[in-house]
């Protein structure tokens, strides 16, 4: 079963920071406040135990810039 991944729409992201707060295991923040995937990938993989938190992060992003794929 392929892991779910988080797709970031960079054209929408406005560094509101909810994702980094709700998913600190997956996201840090870069010097300008934008989400920085800790695993260095373009679309960070979401381990099953964080699936619930990832869904919340997607729902709560004020810019609808996050999407769960897979």
């Amino acid at each position, binding site marked *: 079963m392929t892991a779910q991944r988080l797709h970031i729409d960079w054209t929408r992201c406005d560094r509101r*920071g*909810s994702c980094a707060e*709700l998913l600190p295991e997956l996201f840090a923040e870069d*010097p300008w*406040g934008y989400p920085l995937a800790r695993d260095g990938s373009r679309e960070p993989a979401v381990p099953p135990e964080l699936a619930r938190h990832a869904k919340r992060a997607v729902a*709560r992003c*004020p810019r*609808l810039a996050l999407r769960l794929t897979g």
Partner: protein
Amino acid sequence: MTDALWYLGRGTGVVSLVLLSLVVVLGIATRSGRPLAGMPRFAIGALHRNASLLAVLLLGIHVGTLLADPYAQLRLVDLVVPFAGRYRPLWLGLGTVGLDVITALVATSLLRHRLGQRSWRAVHWLAYLCWPVAVLHSLGTGTDAGQGWLRGVVVVCVGAVVGCAGWRISEGFGARPGRGAGDHSGQSTVVRQATARSGGR
């Protein structure tokens, strides 16, 4: 009994106004992308949402009790069609407009993911129309209109919202300070200056 309904209607009206003002303030705080009073940003957003749902609840009671109260002369059609009411039609009409807009705001927000960001945003800007309408409605409709305590409440609400709105349109609103430089220990002046020059954006 009708007295109780009347008091309940007026009371929930005032509390709704206070809550709506709080919702606008929290909405601006959410938009600012900054933490507030020790709360992380996602929590401010959640507080804004919950306060608005509470406001809707109280608004529902406000409208419901007045519908039930014969003295208020409120009909169902007055909830949707403004300025056609029997009792102080102009001021009541403003309340209708406010109610309709709030319904749209909440409905679009609940369906935000389905509607998409652009449509949601277009409707959400109406919040800045909705709130002054609610204030005018409060001042014009209620039998407490002339009372000092109501005026005091309104002054506080208006002060808070206008103050926040002023901050919202100010230059400093967009420039959010970045968090630490992460793994990199110490930014050079070049980086700091360049960041500031690009408006931090």
